[in-house]
């Protein structure tokens, strides 16, 4: 038994090391970049340099994943959701993500029943569910007044959403108390001495 303990430790260490090494790859495997991503859909819709040659991705079936943001807006049997595939899809600024530019995403028109799988929509206090949809990309949708959208027929949950806590840093609380005290003091002094006017004089 005693002989086995070093082996068990060795196996445990090896397993931990393998898991640690595999973790980033696992994360990347789960959420590979969209092909095409929203930026490509927006920026390279047309044959480069010629606006008249039609939309490059228009009418093609694509697979697209992103963070469900804001809310679902149900309209009859269908619903609008918005999926952001930007730098804040996995972690938002409140959770410590570095600033990496604007949000970017796609509007998705989808059967309302499918949206029930989405448990959280992203906002200040939530990181939304990450879902994948399959559907037809429309550069200018005839059904929706020329909107750029994806008409999805399938949805798959990739990662549930979660609550985000944004605690108040102690330095900020202390600064707020200190400045408030000074503001009250100055406000009181200004009221008290408002009518005590210094005599006119030049520079």
């Amino acid at each position, binding site marked *: 038994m005693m002989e086995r303990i070093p082996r068990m430790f060795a196996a445990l260490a090896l397993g931990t090391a393998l898991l640690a090494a595999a973790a980033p790859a696992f994360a990347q495997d789960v959420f590979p970049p969209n092909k095409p991503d929203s930026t490509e859909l927006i920026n390279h819709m047309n044959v480069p340099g010629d*606006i008249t040659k039609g939309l490059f991705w228009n009418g093609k079936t694509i697979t697209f994943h992103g963070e469900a943001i804001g809310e679902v807006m149900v309209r009859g049997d269908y619903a609008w959701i918005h999926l952001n595939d930007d730098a804040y899809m996995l972690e938002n600024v409140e959770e410590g993500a570095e600033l990496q530019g604007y949000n970017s995403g796609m509007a998705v028109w989808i059967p309302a029943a499918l949206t029930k799988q989405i448990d959280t929509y992203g906002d*200040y206090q939530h990181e939304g569910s990450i879902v994948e949809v399959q559907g037809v990309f429309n550069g*200018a949708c005839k059904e929706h007044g020329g909107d750029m959208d994806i008409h999805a027929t399938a949805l798959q949950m990739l990662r549930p959403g979660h609550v985000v806590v944004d605690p108040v840093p102690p330095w*900020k*609380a202390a600064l707020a108390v200190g400045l408030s005290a000074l503001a009250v003091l100055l406000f009181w002094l200004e009221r008290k001495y408002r009518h005590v006017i210094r005599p006119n004089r030049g520079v």
Partner: protein
Amino acid sequence: MIVRPRLDDHLVIGKYTGKVIVGVGLLMIIPLAVSLGFSEWDTAVDFVISIAACLIFGSGTQLFCRTEKDMNWSHGLAVASGAWVWATALGCLPHYLSGHAGSYLDALFDVMSGYTTTGLYLLQDLDHIANGLNMWRHLLTYAGGQGIVVVALTFLFKGTSGAYKLYVGEGKDERLLPNVVQTARAIWLVSLTWLGVGTLALTATGLYLGQSPVRAFFHGMWVFMGAWSTGGFAPQSFNTFWFHSLTYEVVCIVVMIAGSFNFALHWAMWTGDRKEIRKNIETISMFVTLTLTTLIATFWLAKANVYPDAMSLFRKVFYQIVSGHTTTGFSTIYARAFVTQWGPVGLVAATIAMAIGASACSTGGGIKGIRMGIISKAVLQDIRRMISPESALISQKYHHIRNVWLDDGLVRTTLTITVAYVTLYGVATVVGVLCGFPLDQAAFEAVSAASNTGLSCGITTPAMPAVMKVTYILAMWLGRLEFMSVFALGGYLWSVVRGR
């Protein structure tokens, strides 16, 4: 000889600037309450810090600048333009403390954009910002639309004789009522009535479109503020594209156009003169230029076959062009779509619409409809002079609340301001080109900033060179205050340095 200002001159400017900044601090109580209501504690603390900073500055300057001296014109103009600088420097603290601004400069950019009702923004991860910060973004554009000095005039000033100088310094010169403080209150009466009706309409539409009651209300209020103030901020990064609704777009168009109207026109309508809207030179001018720019863009996009049918084409073109012409900046297309879908002619049509802009004494920016109308009338007058006998007396008048005879002095003043705008557009465009952007896109973005519109073709990003951010901040400030008060502030500072 330039006369150096005396101590009393500094005191009077400090005193009134302090009053305006106290007003800005008090305005932040509203987003603070929203943050507390949504349990956004970190954001709430950001607002406590910012309110305290405004009160320290405001009370401090009033304490150290006690004087009974009244304002003269140069004081009024310097206070108006200076107050905007301080209100921006302190009003951007919530943005900066939120962690969503890449730098203090980015935060300054956003708040100047808000006050000037431009609508360009550099905040990052907008879709995850707090409700309190969203409230502040939209509130400052709503207050900026009426004019932050008008806010202070309404609530903090008690009939000072210098108030009119402040009011004019903020780019407004219409007296709706004999007393300027009453005029400021009349502007607020009109704005608050529209706020109630517009928010109700957009909230009801939002509910119908599937939003929850709380989101429908806040989005309705914020989108109204963005539309009425011709600011163009929206709570989501998708802007008004978020709603995917013709009804929502129609309500927005009505509010945008109403927001772009002269407050004097609103007041005339308010007091029963309904014919004014058909006779006013500004509404006629806007109708003509809006129709022309819409036709140009529609013709080009129809030729390019970008949109699938006539209805989609008209819906997209009319919304973006109205948004540009009223200097609002709402959009239902992605920013880069102006380049990738609309192409050079579409860009130019939108740029012309933005350059002309809204009405004078409104929440909007740009050269203004009244100036376009006066210049057109002056050109017609000259043509008539050319084809008439030398002895003929050719006179021309226009209608704006009352009939006004066109004289050379008025035309010269109009042309001076118009040339100043065109120069500003040109300088900001050149800066964009020097930073490596194509001419048509640089012009679109520069005109958007200087006319306080806020439509973007994708040039304005947090990664934009700092020199462009500074240029756009100055362009927004100059464009909103219509140059004179900023020049007066510059003259004041020059006289401090070089005066005797």
